[in-house]
């Protein structure tokens, strides 16, 4: 693989991380500002949702905690997405060794999310 291609891959990875970080920061900030200003989390007592579907329903109802958790979910998913994007980038550059390496990491990540869901 030439240096040029390697640089291109790194540039795309860096940019995708940047988009994820900014998006999650903005959404988290909006939710947190709403929570601080209104003093209302949108949920009774200390409760906060952990199920993504419940969180999205909360976002639709503009509940501050649901908005914060959406921002945090994007933050958590950013590195996962970065691995996913890398698979495609390496495949495009015909760097098959690293296509396999990143694909293995991606599968392990997906398994870890699924295991978390099952355990719950």
């Amino acid at each position, binding site marked *: 693989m030439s240096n040029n291609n390697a640089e291109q891959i790194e540039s795309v990875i860096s940019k995708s991380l940047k988009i994820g970080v900014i998006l999650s920061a903005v959404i988290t900030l909006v939710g947190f500002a709403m929570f601080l200003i209104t003093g209302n989390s949108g949920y009774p007592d200390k409760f906060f949702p952990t199920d993504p579907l419940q969180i999205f329903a909360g976002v639709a109802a503009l509940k501050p905690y649901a908005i914060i958790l959406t921002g945090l979910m994007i933050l*958590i998913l950013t590195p996962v997405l970065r691995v996913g994007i890398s698979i495609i980038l390496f495949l495009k550059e015909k760097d098959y060794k690293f296509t396999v390496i990143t694909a293995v990491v991606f599968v392990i990540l997906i398994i870890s999310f699924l295991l978390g869901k099952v355990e719950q």
Partner: protein
Amino acid sequence: MALQIFLIAIAAGFIGSLLGLGGGIIITPVLTLLFGLDIKYAIGASVVSVIATSSGAAVAYIKDKITNVRVGMFLEIGTTLGAITGAFLSAIINPKYLFFIFGLFLLFSAIMMIKKSKQELPQNVKPHPVAEKLGLNGEYYDKVLKREVAYNVTGVYGGLGMMYGAGVLSGLLGIGSGIFKVMAMDFHMKLPIKVSSATSNFMIGVTAAASAGVYFLRGSIDPKIAAPVALGVLIGATVGTRIMQRLKSKTLRLIFVPVLIFTSVEMIIKGVFNG
């Protein structure tokens, strides 16, 4: 309390991005020792802190080519597998022991750092055959030395094994165990310390994400704690990446030592007397 958490998160993101540690090392003890929060929520917040430091710092470090992306991605096989193992062990193991293990682990890291504090760059490293095959050897522009630094990578298999261990710790303690990753790359794989730190930063996000899913669904990530942590850490990490490149490698090593010793003692005390 939100403002205090936010300020501490800025410091955590700053130090974490300098040293490749992810800031969980600061967030977990501060939230439990200073704010008296349940370790469950402290770990959830620190997982968020690790991911924020990692992604926030990686944006700059990859652009400036300090991160060795190929080394990072290769070693992630070990860290992610370890992280799954650790997250499930954490439901079985008593937090008291968690503190104790955490503390001992930090003290060990400090001793390792002092031992190597005189070295600016690794010398005469013979590249591992696998490193050549996978194209892991690299180079970066050092802003202090004002030249390109080319380096070889060795100890590939041992490094991968140590990354599995680092992953287990991160799942157990809710930290990216960046120190252990930096140690493995610095000590065993002989990468320059800046590359080790930046590459560790790059990897810890993925390791933490592997266990974050579990913590998220388990309800460990409390929005009113995790939000100021995430925002503060992102700010601190952005500043940290600019400073790190202008520090000497020796200086970087010395910054490690007091951070490690202080936190280590605190955690061992907590592990022995409370828990």
